[in-house]
């Protein structure tokens, strides 16, 4: 097999490094994230709390759609405090009213 001739003569060095370049010590991920840890002997132990799982709930009888009818006008919320929906005091007060008692 031959190297690609268009890349010869110092042209390859100008390109960005890929996972296949450089002999040792250079690691480049692919954006999938860490799923575990390496062992000292070169193996890999999967940590299942790091592995992402996708939970799809039961959609039977669910009537909401991704769209809202155009006849309903857009109404922005009105809040008393400056933080508005992010206000922790409002959150706490609402919790006390709705969830405080079992």
């Amino acid at each position, binding site marked *: 097999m031959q190297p690609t001739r268009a890349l010869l003569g110092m042209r390859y060095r100008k390109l960005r490094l890929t996972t296949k370049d450089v002999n040792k010590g250079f690691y480049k991920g692919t954006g999938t994230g860490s799923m575990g840890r390496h062992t000292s002997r070169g193996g890999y132990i999967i940590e299942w709390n790091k592995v992402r799982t996708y939970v799809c*709930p039961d959609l039977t009888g669910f009537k*909401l759609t991704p*769209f809202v009818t155009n006849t309903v006008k857009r109404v922005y919320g009105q809040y008393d405090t400056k933080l508005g*929906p992010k206000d*922790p*005091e409002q959150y*706490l007060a609402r919790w006390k*009213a709705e969830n*405080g*008692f079992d």
Partner: protein
Amino acid sequence: MASSATAASLRPSLGAAAAAFRLTSSSSSPASRICPSILLLQTSSFSTSSPLSKRHTYPGARSNKDMSKNRGQSALRRTGLRWRLSMSDEPLPKPRSRDELPPVEVDPDHGLWDFFPNRETVAAAPEDDMKHGRAWMVEELRGKSWEDLHRLWWVCVKERNRIATGSWERERGKMGFGKSEAQTRDREVRNTMRGIKHVLTERFYAWEDAVKLAENDPEVDLSGKGRVFTPTEYLEEEGAVETKAEEEVVGSREAVEAEAVVVPPGEKAQGEAARI
């Protein structure tokens, strides 16, 4: 004639034998008029078949061999085989045309049907793709529970899958227009998903900040022992409070007063006085 073939090269040709006979007959002695086979020496090997079965070729002639063993054979053109096989005489089944085949049995409840807008078409027509509303507003989503938001998210995911399948098939089959309408629809769905994520993040941050606040709140006990929330009015009378707070709460975002809790008639004046 296996026995006689091998020694043909060793055995002299008849012409040579005749010449030898002529030579001997010139002396014209009766003793010499014997069959030439006795006069000439003969050596015969074990098998004589190979030289006889070999086809005579002139020296320097080129070979007639067909070097291409698969000459003329084509699966695409359905020529059939060149050489006979053991089953060449057996009647083999012939493939049926697609129209003759029985219809494929399909599970009507299969989950993969959700990738298509209906059972007949693979991509929605542009006029049907156009029929959609606007995306959810963040304000509208704030009022929804976790369960509703979770299910709405997955409804959006499935809708996006449907749109993506349609776009892929439309491009692959060069079916025509519809990409623009699909993109508009996809944008609205993505905006809804963005809103859902925003609401959940906002709720989480507000919760985190509220937990911090609650650590310094005398009404809230986060240690895990006993009741978490004890309203200040009833710290002394812990057994006498009815728990109807959830029913009486109005769905507004303003802080709900302690009046929402149903007060036993005897303590009402005391409760108001304590608040003042």
